[in-house]
């Protein structure tokens, strides 16, 4: 009665919208209530969600991001990368002097921070020999500056003193501060010195920062990098602003400016080629240029047997194509393992679900025992069984089925991997099947039989269709686990039974080519997602039951 009254006396506003008791439109009020409910639900799952995001999704995303990330080149050789923009690989000649001059600066700084070897091993993945080239150049780059250092020091001994440099390039405020605080005082450049001697000021400032942050030394007491002398030579012989400079040691600089004309000079290019001939090799420069962008498709190309060369994308040399083969093999073998698991697990699960409780419990323990046993133990057990001097071969020879000289080869090949992995993954198939079969009422089969079906028809038309969701769940579990397995294939796979995951493991833990490992992993993840999607389209994911 009261409900009916309320409905008829429902308030409406000017536009004829229904209003709630407090006067707000009913629609908005309902939306608010629903939103509050959703927020509450979100708050309830928030701890778990955040936990999964932080500990699972974020690390995976971070790792996958490495498959395109390539900042190391531009970060380590910033000036060289810019200077290289002018140069074309197609020109067929090594780049000009400005690139080498930029390289001298970058290499000096990188070598001081010990970053050059890291870049060397990164680029060595693409072109063999760059690793030692960079290591060697890091050691040799000092020679470039020392060539001029000697001449400056011969001219005037004052150039041997760190203070000379500090007084010219350090601001008065810093000079005063360092006298009291030592290394604590933060270095700053003298006003105008950057305009008068741009190159030298840049390198000296980089040196001062390095001395303070890395070594915690006072630049006032430390010899500058030899490269600073080369820079000073460049600035002075370029005639830059020594006239306009009136700070400390102006006389010394005037003297040097007058003398540099008579200095012996050396081109950076010649100096680098002197350190190692490879600096004249355009392959090296082509590689640096091709990998200078901050993001690269190089890793993904490598993982599908292509390569990014200075001349564009090319197929990998035939003797290095391996990933296509491994991907195909991984898919094929995972499929074979899944199918053999289905065939072996179905009867076991059927028995488990249909035998009396006492016996089925015992069977269940037999299924679970290996499940609880260490993976390595189970894999090693297969070795003992399958090897040529192993149990199975011994028995076959003893029976006389196999000749002693021609024992069967059942391990260190695909067969061994399939057998061992089928055994290891079998419980993941049995358990979902069992839990689905348990829910199938036996009366259905009895009904089918009482209506005249044969045993086979009753099973095939009535029982089997109801057990399909278990097969689906088990297959997805087994297939996805199999595709990412690497311990068992590594131990019993030999050369023909290894998976793509073995290469991923190699690149992550051994070659340290994390980018390539991440690219391979991303492709594997994509393949699994596509298969999952296809499964959903064909069978329907609603049909999957874990129990």
């Amino acid at each position, binding site marked *: 009665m009261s409900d009916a009254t309320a409905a008829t006396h429902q308030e409406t506003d000017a536009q004829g919208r229904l209003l709630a008791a407090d006067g707000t439109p009913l629609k908005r009020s309902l939306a608010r209530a629903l939103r509050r409910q959703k927020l509450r639900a979100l708050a309830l799952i928030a701890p778990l969600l955040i936990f999964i995001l932080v500990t699972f999704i974020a690390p995976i995303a971070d790792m996958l991001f490495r498959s395109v990330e390539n900042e190391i080149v531009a970060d380590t050789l910033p000036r060289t990368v810019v200077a290289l923009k002018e140069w074309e690989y197609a020109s067929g000649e090594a780049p000009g002097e400005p690139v080498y001059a930029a390289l001298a600066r970058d290499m000096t700084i990188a070598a001081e921070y010990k970053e050059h070897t*890291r870049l060397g091993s990164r680029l060595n993945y693409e072109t063999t020999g760059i690793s030692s080239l960079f290591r060697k150049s890091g050691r040799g780059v000092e020679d470039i500056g020392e060539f001029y250092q000697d001449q400056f020091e011969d001219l005037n001994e004052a150039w041997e003193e760190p203070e000379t440099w500090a007084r010219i390039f350090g601001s008065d405020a810093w000079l005063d501060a360092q006298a009291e605080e030592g290394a604590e005082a933060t270095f700053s450049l003298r006003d105008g010195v950057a305009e008068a001697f741009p190159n030298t000021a840049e390198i000296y400032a980089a040196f001062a920062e390095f001395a303070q942050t890395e070594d915690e030394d006072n630049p006032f007491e430390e010899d500058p990098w030899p490269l600073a002398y080369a820079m000073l030579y460049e600035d002075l012989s370029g005639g830059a602003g020594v006239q306009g400079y009136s700070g400390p040691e102006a006389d010394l600089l005037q003297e040097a400016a007058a003398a540099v004309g008579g200095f012996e000079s050396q081109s950076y290019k010649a100096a680098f080629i002197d350190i190692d001939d490879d600096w004249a090799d355009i392959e090296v420069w082509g590689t640096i240029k091709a990998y200078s962008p901050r993001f690269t498709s190089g890793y993904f190309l490598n993982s599908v047997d292509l390569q990014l060369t200075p001349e564009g994308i090319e197929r990998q040399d035939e*003797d290095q*194509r391996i990933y296509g083969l491994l991907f195909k093999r991984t898919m094929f073998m995972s499929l074979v393992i899944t199918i053999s698991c289905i065939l072996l697990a179905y009867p076991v699960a059927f028995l488990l679900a249909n035998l009396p409780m006492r016996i089925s419990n015992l069977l269940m323990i037999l299924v679970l025992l290996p499940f609880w046993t260490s993976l390595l133990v189970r894999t090693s057990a297969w070795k003992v069984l399958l090897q040529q001097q192993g149990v199975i071969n011994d028995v076959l020879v003893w029976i006389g089925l196999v000749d002693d000289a021609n024992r069967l080869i059942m391990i260190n090949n695909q067969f061994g991997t399939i057998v061992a992995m089928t055994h290891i993954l079998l419980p993941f198939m049995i358990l979902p099947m069992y839990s689905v079969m348990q829910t199938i009422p036996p009366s259905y089969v009895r009904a089918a039989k009482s209506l005249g079906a044969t045993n086979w028809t009753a099973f095939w038309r009535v029982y089997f269709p109801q057990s399909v969701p278990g097969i689906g769940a088990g297959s997805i579990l087994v297939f996805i686990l199999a595709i990412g397995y690497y311990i068992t294939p*590594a131990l019993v796979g*030999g050369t023909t039974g290894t998976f793509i995951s073995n290469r991923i493991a190699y690149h992550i*833990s051994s070659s*340290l080519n994390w980018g390539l490992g991440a690219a391979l992993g991303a492709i594997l993840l994509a393949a699994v997602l596509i298969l999952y999607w296809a499964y959903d389209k064909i069978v329907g994911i609603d049909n999957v039951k874990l129990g």
Partner: protein
Amino acid sequence: MTMKKTILATTALTVSAGLAFAEAHGNMADSMTLVSWGGAYQASQQKAYVEPYLAANEGVSATWDESSNEAVAKLRAMNEAGNVTWDLVDVVASDAIRLCDEGLAMEYDPDELLADAPDGTKASDDFGDLIVSDCFIPQIVYSTTFGYRTDMVGDTPPTDVCAVFDTEAYPGKRSLEKRPINNMEWALICDGVAKEDVYDVLETEEGQDRAFAKLDTIKDDVIWWSAGADTPQLLADGEVVMGSTYNGRLFSVIEEQDQPVAMLWDAQVFDLDGWIIPAGLPEDRLARVKDFVKFATDTQRLADQAKYISYGPARQSSAPLVGQHAELGIDMGPHMPTDPANATNTFLYNYEWWADYRDDLDAKFQAWLAQ
């Protein structure tokens, strides 16, 4: 009164003792995490220098992490995460070079960090060329060499490494490591390349093809191993007639397990194993590690290690001190890879060369295996 005096005296004593202790030990952390390979090798380190060190330094504890196999990757990950939990890491020389290249290991001055030999020889001279990287503190020389089943080779046991490639004289499976390093060199040597030219030849495309062609001749007869324990197991089971592995593993098969296996020292490839100190350790931990390393790499300690495992001490001055096996009581000298009788024909693995060619040749090697 007397009571009070006693308490005062005790307090004074304790405080002064504490001060003296702090002075002598500076600011040292009282725990270390050492990383090694596990198994017999780690046990030899434990007995030869970790236990004596802990006995001499009360209150210090050492924890082992058996991660040397993946030290490079893990150290890089720790470094990126900004939390290096390891204090001292045992790695092979090639890994030490890479860690040094990556800036993950600390460079050190041998004469400052390491103890002099008893006769006063500087550490840098005592270790000599074995300090192959500015970060690498050598401990032992080991070799990768072949062992063979004495009951499966007939009346003429092999004396030459090329027996590995001679399937007619020595039928049966062989086990080789599943990586190009060492195998490529052996293949070329047995294809008639002089030892000193191996790396020059291997640098060329034709040379690589030549090595692969030689390996092709035995490809169907090879079981490829990736764990050091594989070959000893395969030999013990009679699965292979001969196989390569680390000489210490073969020693334990032959002497400790008494299997019918013998060593084929010919063309053994020397390699080094040693410590690196991770870069950027906090001062107190660094001080402790430096103190430990000085002790653990002195002449006597390295000689002691040879009592437990048949790897040669990296110090020249330790060699004369090598004695008998701690349990078996046999002379360890003749089992050392560096023993003159064993080292008549050795091959020195070129670290720098492999640092360059490793990525390229590994891809080729894996593609060759997969064919």
